[in-house]
């Protein structure tokens, strides 16, 4: 039973920790190395570690951060850190490989605990790691490092909205975090249950990539939509909720739609919001959830799926990320105990 619904707390790096397994990824963002860099040798050690190595673009940034994480884990891990090559171009296959590898590693550790640093992972890979750890019976803690700031910046607000609304696609492509939807992924373990004769309601946790959401909704063609815009825990980033709304305002005019807001960080709050919506619509609709905003929302969606396996989890991958316009710097690191 998943009982811990607290909001993530800031990681206290002064406390000793010795998980059986640590899973991290060398992503293209700077924050993907933050957790490993902040861990101190005398206070953290792990029996085994697994590092996700991306082979898809942006290759330079991914590889550099992978090597950084690997160097750190080499110091912190009692055995040689293991790595697994993953690719956003074959997401489902990589997800299966991650799960299978974690399953194998879990058999070889004595401490039945795991830490997953999701900061450098795609939503699907983060959820796959979490799922594998829980299925293997590991008490799992999520580590999540936030960025200092995210794109689009406040200065670009008006520009990006104007560019998007007037279909100035060149401008949009310059300002948005990624270049549209490449593919929709529905791994079979998260495929949910379909009842014949029921329409599907798609719950979208919307961020700042309307180009990706547009492709998803068009492809999925749900019976109804619930769009929950992310609200940052930081007051100085609250304006981003409005930006998200403005970016998505024209996308859903053809669908029966309901809009709301939800935290980007508080897992408990996200779960509550999902539960509330689910309670109301579950009789009439089958439900699918597409987390398109924060990584912690993806974690919350997964935990929601654990409670309601009839729900379908949908993941997307963009054509490419704009590494220079995604996030900047590193903020705090949070921890969230899943089991």
């Amino acid at each position, binding site marked *: 039973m998943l009982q811990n619904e607290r909001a993530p707390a800031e990681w206290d790096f002064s406390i000793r920790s010795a998980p059986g397994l640590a899973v991290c990824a060398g992503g293209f963002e700077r924050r993907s190395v933050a957790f490993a860099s902040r861990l101190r040798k005398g206070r953290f050690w792990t029996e085994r570690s697994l590092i996700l190595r991306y082979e898809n673009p942006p290759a330079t940034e991914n590889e550099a951060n992978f090597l950084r994480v690997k160097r750190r884990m080499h110091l912190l891990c009692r055995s040689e850190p293991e790595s697994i090559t993953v690719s956003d171009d074959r997401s489902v*296959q990589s997800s299966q490989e991650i799960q299978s590898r974690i399953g194998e590693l879990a058999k070889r550790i004595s401490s039945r605990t795991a830490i997953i640093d999701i900061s450098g992972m795609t939503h699907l890979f983060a959820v796959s790691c979490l799922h594998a750890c829980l299925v293997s019976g590991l008490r799992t803690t999520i580590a999540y490092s936030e960025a200092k700031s995210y794109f689009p910046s406040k200065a670009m607000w008006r520009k990006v909205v104007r560019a998007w609304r007037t*279909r100035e696609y060149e401008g949009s*492509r310059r300002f948005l975090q990624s270049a549209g939807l490449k593919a*929709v992924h529905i791994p079979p373990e998260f495929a949910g249950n379909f009842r014949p004769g029921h329409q599907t309601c798609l719950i979208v946790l919307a961020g700042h990539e309307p180009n990706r959401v547009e492709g998803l909704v068009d492809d999925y063609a749900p019976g109804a939509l619930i769009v929950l815009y992310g609200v940052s825990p930081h007051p100085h980033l609250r304006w981003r909720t409005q930006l998200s709304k403005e970016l998505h305002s024209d996308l859903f005019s053809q669908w029966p739609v309901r809009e709301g807001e939800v935290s980007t960080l508080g897992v408990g709050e996200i779960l509550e919001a999902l539960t509330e919506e689910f309670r109301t619509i579950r009789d009439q609709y089958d439900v699918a959830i597409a987390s398109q905003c924060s990584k912690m929302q993806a974690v919350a969606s997964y935990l929601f799926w654990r409670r309601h396996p*009839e729900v379908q989890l949908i993941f997307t991958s963009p054509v490419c990320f704009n590494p220079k316009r995604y996030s900047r710097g590193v903020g705090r690191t949070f921890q969230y105990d899943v089991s």
Partner: protein
Amino acid sequence: MSSTTTLRAPNQLVLKGKALHEALANPRCLFLLDSIFKRGPLTVKQIAEAAALSQRDVDSLLAVAVDAELIAYSSGLYSLTVLGEKRIAFGSTSFEFLVGAKLVADPAALANALRNEYKIKNLIGIGATSYTFLAEQSGTHRDRALKIFIPGTVTYERLDEALRKRAQITGDVAVPEIVDAGQVMIRCPDGRSHITACVALEYVSNSQTFAEFLKSQENLSPRVFQRFVERVGGALAAIELVGLSHGDLHERNILVAKRASYGGTQDFWVIDFIGVPSTSSPEMDVPSDMENFRNHLLRAAVVACERYPGYSVRLLLGENVFRVLEGLRNEAYRSFSELLEDFHRSRLPIPQDYFRAPLPEPFEWLRVEFIPSAEWLYRLFEPVPSRFETIARFGNTWLSGPRGCGKSHYLRVLAFHPQVIVEAAKNQELNQKLKSINYDFKRAFGILFACRLGEFKPFAPDVMRRTTFDSETKAFLKHILILKIWNKTLQTIKEGLECCEDETNRSVLAPPTNSTHLIQFFEDRLGSMAVMEDPTAESVFLQCLAACSARENSAVAVWPDAARRKSGRLLDEADLDQFFRVVKQTFPDLTETRFYILVDDASYGHIHFEMQKLLNSLVRAVQANHCFKITCEKYMYTLDTADGRAIDPRHEVTYVDLGEVSTKAQRETAVDLSEYMARVIDSRLRAAGYKSEIRAILGRSQDAREFLAALSVPGSRRPKKGERAAPKAPRPRAYYAGWNIVWSLAHGSIRTLLELVEYIFRKSKASQETDGIALKVQDSAVRSYSNLHYKALSMLPGAIDGEPIGPRLQGVISAIGEMSRQYLERYETGEKGRWYETISLERLDRRRLPQGAQNILDELVKYGLLLDEGITFSRAQFGLLPRYDMNKIFAPAFQTTYRVRNHIYVTRNRFVELLSKPDKFVSRHRRKLDELADRRRTKVKGQPPQGLLFEENSATE
């Protein structure tokens, strides 16, 4: 799954009272109790001597017995408690010798004597206070359950009082009736005689315990659990209401028996209820009825979850049972009445304004998914009759065409829509529409699969880290596909059963009179079906549907893991047609029908190629009662089957390309496209309340010569520094406006035309009263729309070689548009009033393209940017060659022609260059065009300009 785990934990509740059970199950402990019973209070030492045990063992046994409150310790002596005494005393009397005997009570000798005579057949149960026998009632020869109380446990007075209360229970309660009650005298073989109370009850024959039932039934539906709550919970509520309790609701006291009333359905019974507790003493710590009820339900839920791995408990048990189970686990109910009230509580519907509905604007229903009701689906349907007749005919059909050509609409009108049938009875116009397309579900019953919803997406070999499925997986996935078709069919039929005509309240589909064939069919293929009693006739059918749906969902959840797949018979092609045969036998309205399985948008992206092959295997099988109709996009559907064969689209199926509607090459099947498209638009205009028709509103287009003359004037060049600008003559205007040009620009796509017209209306602020829009205004809107459409290309989803696909496709379209414009402006045809109008690419050979270029071409065709016009006779007299037209909607963006009069001829290499390096292609052609223009000025006598162009083209290759 987690749901099963969470259900298991509370099962420990069943172990309450463990101490007592352990004590009574331990023979040493029983011996110890017997010693104290016979000899009176004893010390530890005496007990140890009597039992020949060590003092340590005796201490441990005594501790257990004291814990269970069977023995009390006082002043160094251990004595039996009242509970202990009773347990031992009852154990000393046995009535087993009565089997085979006749039980007769003499009313003269005995007060309140049992009225009837019973021949005892079998001992069927021993309880703490009674023996229960199967006995035949003399006179009626009916079997009865005869319960004889152990003397001293229940007096007749107490029994009488309980029976009076019990008599207040009325209605259809799942408790057997009491037939007879009274006292009997029983003479034991040891010479003792006992006068004791006795009750004869209705005997529940042909039954299993609930646990046995769950174990024996391979297919369970939520109705099993609902009926459990209704019947068992209902019985306990009724008992509770008269101030009694069952008190002994153990596993063997809940039976499931076949009912004679309706086709072998089964129902629950709570037996062994008299009204007096079945426990030996009130002090005994036994679970309450509520606890027992909860434990049974929990256990049943665990069994069901294990039967269907990966299927949600909530769906498996049903919403209301799941809610009750949650309530029981949280100890939320004080009584069974409360429990039943919660069980029957209807779910609140979704509030009216929960979703913001899109405005009812027919012009914005650009995709069939947007059309808000089935009724509108028909009202807005304007088919090309010849195409529709082909599509609607019985037989396997593939239906393709460019995006927005209306293929989904053609398919979806074939589906069974009971609400439309009800509505048509009241609405003459709709009725006429249905007649015009020969809509008759008794002849053709359509079952629709909308493939967009992620339903088929997870079935991909990548999941198994392979590129193709292995043979076992193929067989299992075919099994899933067939289950899906079964379920979708049953669900569609269910909608027909539930949809009633307003006046007569008669359902569109008559309910089945006999479901025996259907149940037998499922049992032969899926194993035994737990079909529960229900007052409604169609319930049996609905239970079959629910059980099949659970089976399907569970199979879907476990398919990638071969070890978790349920062993047993896998369904194959033969089962599919057999299923439809049985459905025809079951439903009186469907005896003559044939079933159309409508698979909408089975293109790659929604269904993996490997999965399409499995679907093709089903399509290819011989079938008398069903056929498949599949829509897909060109190049996005394979024609291979799972066993490696290829389907011949000309002989084995019917292939309809709706794109051909707009292709002049298909002369023998050509339709009046202008007329057809005007009809489509006018039906929407009428729906939106417009007074005028589209041709009147948009008016006549500019004459083609006038239009092209204006369009071909080169753009004004900015004067060089110091140069004087030449005086400007009034520039003629080319208007992309008027009906003829507007519908042509849509290039056969209904969706594009709707969007374009809607855009023109919006820009010109047209109202329902508008009867005309100026050409200038239309032109401005059309150019703006075309530009937007062109710009949007850069945002197309997808990637090729890790690069966004949008800009690459945009580059190709830009190159074609640019070249077209160049030819229009600069190429002299040598004929007055004739221009070189080309938005068409004709290949000069049929050599294969490299994979990268082919991928780009496929994407261009997939998104309808280039229209694949098929193999046509080459204008250059090269025989049959492929031709591709740029979508005309981009013509205004490049200020070029919207007509296909001439072609750009390309060899393989030039075509590859266009697809891979469009900029290079443009500069090469521009250079060549410059040369041609120069040579034109110094033309060689006898060489026609067009030939010159072509000759030059081929010469350079």
